[in-house]
């Protein structure tokens, strides 16, 4: 029999006081900007903020009647799936391999964690140079293989470029979580399976992967959010959304229209839409994917 342990506060004020710092941080850094974005999305203003016109839903109407915007939405979904999918698979592979390494394990792990310390713009430039036709090491290699590599004019090549850069940037984060998840799996389970005659492949699918499912689910959500929100600097540093608009993902358009073109109303409307898209996606993931997670 266990006694329920409850802490009761004598006054009503104290709990609020204790919560206040956290509430203040969330309010100032999340709710206030989000409210501002909503407000600005209903307005159009010139760059200097001298004339503000209330336009209601005009900014949103403009977005959804623009075929390019819908194309960008589809592109962002594809991009997020590619980044999250290949990012998780690669990180899991590396984590499994790092787990098995006996000598110099620390070195491998440190090296794998390094990219996380690199700023997105730097990551973008780095891959841009390696993939730059005529300059880059990888571009030379691809040409040597007979591939006419040209991310400046070939949309698929450009997409590959930003996906690779985005995946690489997030790889360390995923790797760390997978490694921690792997280390938390009791070795006795694996050993028992091995004694029962399960091979490495079978052990991975029936024991390791299910045991990792909470980690994988968490990482899936985080990676989707990362691909949707955090990748504009990579696009800005590599393709500028080109060729044409073929790599202009939603968050890059938000950044470009707001900070380069200074169309605050249009940019705010886009950020509201983006926020809604990510909220919906996250809810969907919790409803459908989480059912398959065993904690």
């Amino acid at each position, binding site marked *: 029999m266990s006694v329920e342990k409850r802490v009761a506060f004598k006054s009503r004020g104290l709990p609020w006081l204790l919560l206040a710092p956290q509430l203040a941080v969330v309010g100032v850094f999340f709710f206030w900007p989000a409210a501002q974005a909503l407000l600005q999305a209903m307005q159009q203003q*010139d760059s200097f903020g001298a004339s503000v016109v209330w336009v209601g839903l005009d900014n949103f109407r403009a977005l959804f009647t623009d075929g390019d915007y819908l194309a960008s939405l589809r592109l962002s979904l594809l991009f997020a799936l590619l980044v999250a999918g290949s990012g998780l698979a690669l990180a899991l592979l590396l984590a499994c391999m790092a787990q098995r390494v006996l000598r110099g394990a620390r070195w491998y792990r440190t090296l794998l964690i390094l990219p996380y310390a690199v700023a997105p713009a730097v990551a973008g430039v780095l891959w841009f140079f390696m993939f730059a036709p005529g300059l880059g090491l990888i571009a030379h290699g691809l040409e040597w293989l007979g591939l006419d590599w040209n991310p*400046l004019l070939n949309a698929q090549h450009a997409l590959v470029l930003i996906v690779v850069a985005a995946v690489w940037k997030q790889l360390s984060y995923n790797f760390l979580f997978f490694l921690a998840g792997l280390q938390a799996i009791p070795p006795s389970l694996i050993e028992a399976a091995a004694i029962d005659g399960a091979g490495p492949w079978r052990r991975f699918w029936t024991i390791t992967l299910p045991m990792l499912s909470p980690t994988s689910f968490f990482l899936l959500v985080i990676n989707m959010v990362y691909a949707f929100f955090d990748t504009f600097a990579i696009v800005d540093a590599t393709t500028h959304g*080109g060729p*044409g608009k073929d790599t202009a993902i939603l968050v890059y358009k938000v950044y470009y229209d707001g900070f380069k073109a200074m169309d605050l109303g249009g940019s705010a409307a886009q950020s509201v839409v983006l926020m809604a898209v990510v909220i919906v996606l996250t809810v969907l993931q919790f409803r459908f994917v989480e059912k398959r997670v065993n904690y």
Partner: protein
Amino acid sequence: MRRMIAPALATVLLSIGLSSPAQAQTEIQWWHSMGGALGEWVNDLAKDFNASQKDYKIVPTYKGSYDESMTAAIAAYRAGNAPALLQVFEVGTATMMASHGAIKPVGEVMKEAGIKFDPNEFVPAVAGYYTAPNGQMLSFPFNSSTTVLFYNKDAFKAAGLDPNKPPLTWTEVALDAAKLKAAGSKCPFTTGWQGWTQLESFSTWHNVEFATLDNGFGGPAARLAFNSPLHVRHIENLANMAKQGLFVYKGRGNAPDASLVSGECAMETGSSSLYGIVKRNSSFAFGIAPLPYYHDVPGAPQNTIIGGASLWVMSGHKPAEYKGVAAFLAYLARPDVAAASHQRTGYLPVTKAAYALTDKSGYYKANPGTDIAVEQMIRKTTAKSRGLRLGNYVQIRNIEDEELEQVWAGKKTAKQALDEAVQRGNEQLERFQKLNR
């Protein structure tokens, strides 16, 4: 903690001690976007001006790239602490003009300070860009460049071409490019700033309309017109060259410059301010030629269009600061100062006197090619060639890039892409007009 307080206190005391003799001086903040060697140039200008008198002190601050410093200044203006002087790229001109009292016209600043200031002393195609319809100069043309053709003389020689006979027309560009390709060049021709060189400057150079209402000088109701038969013909021509491997697309903005400097591309149309970089970093002999044109177009060549930036005076500062700004701008326009700037940076001379002085000093003879850009500009402009005054132009440049890339990739015909670019650009102009009636 105490260990940190002591140095902080010392710094405060020290700075009070250092600044006290300068208290009679009026400090003037100047935000700019000149990095590297150009940043040194800006700092030297401020230093020399500060040393030349003791009433004012210009404090230059590097605020990142053109769009970054403009964004920073606008944010600062909204917060009530904008700098007195701000460098803005030519693309931002219409935005600055429509800023509803955020700026103070340079003509007005000079008049209030009682300094003689004649806009006619400036190079017309440069000053025209920054002048209001009533003839008042709105911003000070600080660093202007224009579009020229750079070519690799060694590559020309290797292809059996005369290195002293650059192509002058687009027909000759294609012919020379074919010879270069036959001699093994992987990139006979490329272009930097495609929207600026192949659409904007192309229009003024051929004296055809880029946008209605005198390219926007006639008011915010102007709409784009760069889908005329001549424009389509030119873009089609470039698309054909791209198909044959004579024109190789090397990216947006100044990204293609590197392929000229490395020797990969034999010809590039780009900014004249590339001169210093090619001269310092390339390992081959290079030449500069005027922007190519179509010889059958009547009135061509007219004049090319400028790029670069100008200095805007922001409102809301003390009268003493404006006097200082006026004195500084007058200093920058002095023939000797402007001539020295022109020769040091490769930017165009700001005033006619600076050009004459540079010419007299024998600089152009000693540095062949440096006069090409000046000669393209130092002409009497027409209503179609004076410049551009279009709102939301940062976005329109981007639209030009996006649509042209579709042509180079073979996804759209020249006509389709230009029509689409005009239509999308016009949507931007309509938005701008709605906000700036």
